[in-house]
């Protein structure tokens, strides 16, 4: 086979797809191998799976070039199927850990899945997005940044790449790492500008936020203002194109953020009033209105909106509404009622069942209250 088969040009394409081992059964250094894999006749051809230490294919006798090609194809296919099965299991395990809130463990397992993944693994994008996101939730911003930088080039041209880059960008900004911010901003921008990537308006709006944050971080006020203007125009166009009130209100929260950022809270009022009329049972429109009116320093209107929100809100979200309410009282100069509102928020938070009890938020309120005293 050495003389006629392995020299065939058609085998060249297999060169990098296997590691090739020639075992001279007479040579002293191959004794350990032969003890593990007894060879009854020569030649014997084997395909081994190095990770599992198992035999994937065995053939006693010589092979012609077409026979060998067939064997290699078969072996590669079954190797790939086994690796994919293992990688998919790791991905499912990581998803499970992430949904249990064990973000650091989930990140480790996503990493393991990505490491064992065979080439062209179709779930790489989702695994990479989940990995970077879990790292950011776990507060491991160093690895979040580093992994985003490493994974982006492998995903380039996909929505997953855009999400990996923008999540990494937030992490890098939090770390104040200039060089990493610059690189991840370039990646995010590249994905943002790529017309071939199918992107929901929500996704695009999220990328705007990351890009604006990066401009702010760079101290580029002009660039940040221009981008905010572009973001608002984009959101307004998307909302104008909405064919139902449900579709239109999807943009309310991002539009409110954008208007507040631009120092134009008054522009948020008509849309939020419209949403409140369209969805009288929803606490979101009045709770957002309270925010907008507070920014406009119209405290009575802000409190009235807060009252309407409080009448409808339930669960952990109520703490957010109470927090804004405390801010309104503070801005109004009524520190006493602001404190009472915080006390009320803390009591309510503690009354929530485990699983819904926002411990971090409660702690933040307690700290705030202590500072006010």
């Amino acid at each position: 086979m050495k003389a006629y088969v392995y020299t065939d040009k058609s085998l060249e394409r297999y060169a990098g797809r296997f590691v090739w081992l020639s075992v001279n059964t007479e040579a002293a250094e191959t004794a350990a191998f032969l003890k593990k894999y007894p060879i009854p006749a020569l030649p014997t051809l084997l395909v081994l799976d190095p990770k599992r230490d198992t035999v994937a294919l065995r053939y006693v006798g010589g092979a012609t070039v077409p026979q060998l090609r067939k064997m290699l194809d078969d072996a590669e296919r079954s190797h790939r199927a086994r690796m994919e099965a293992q990688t998919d299991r790791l991905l499912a395990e990581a998803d499970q850990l992430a949904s249990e809130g064990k973000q650091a463990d989930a990140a480790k397992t996503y990493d393991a899945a990505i490491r064992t993944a065979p080439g062209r693994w179709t779930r790489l994008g989702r695994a990479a997005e989940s990995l970077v996101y879990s790292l950011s939730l776990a507060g491991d911003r160093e690895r979040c940044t580093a992994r985003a930088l490493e994974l982006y080039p492998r995903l380039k041209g996909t929505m997953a790449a855009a999400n990996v880059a923008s999540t990494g960008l937030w992490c890098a900004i939090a770390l104040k790492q200039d060089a990493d911010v610059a690189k991840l901003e370039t990646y995010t921008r590249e994905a943002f500008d790529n017309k071939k990537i199918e992107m929901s308006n929500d996704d695009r709006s999220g990328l705007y936020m990351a890009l604006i944050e990066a401009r702010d971080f760079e101290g580029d006020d002009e660039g940040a203002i221009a981008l905010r203007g572009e973001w608002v125009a984009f959101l307004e166009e998307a909302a104008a194109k909405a064919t139902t009130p449900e579709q239109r209100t999807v943009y309310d929260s991002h539009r409110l953020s954008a208007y507040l950022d631009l120092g134009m809270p008054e522009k948020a009022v008509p849309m939020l009033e419209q949403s409140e009329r369209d969805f009288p049972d929803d606490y979101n429109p009045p709770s957002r209105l309270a925010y907008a009116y507070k920014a406009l320093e119209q405290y009575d209107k802000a409190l009235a909106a807060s009252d309407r929100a409080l009448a409808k809100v339930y669960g952990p979200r109520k703490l957010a509404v109470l927090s804004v309410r405390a801010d309104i009282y503070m801005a109004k100069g009524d520190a006493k009622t602001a404190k009472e509102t915080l006390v009320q928020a803390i009591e309510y938070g503690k009354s929530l069942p485990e699983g819904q009890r926002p411990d971090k938020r409660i702690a933040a309120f307690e700290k705030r209250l202590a500072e006010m005293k």
Partner: protein
Amino acid sequence: MKRVLPLALMLLGALSTRAELPFIENDYQRAVREASAKNVPIFVEAWAPW
């Protein structure tokens, strides 16, 4: 003279069609390390020089 050059080129061409599969000689541990790192299987040919 005219025929010599094409013949030489043909010979060179024929030589370059020889594939070189990068066989590791006898070192199983090294093969395992390389295959694990590259995430590919190991092809083994067991033979004897007789």
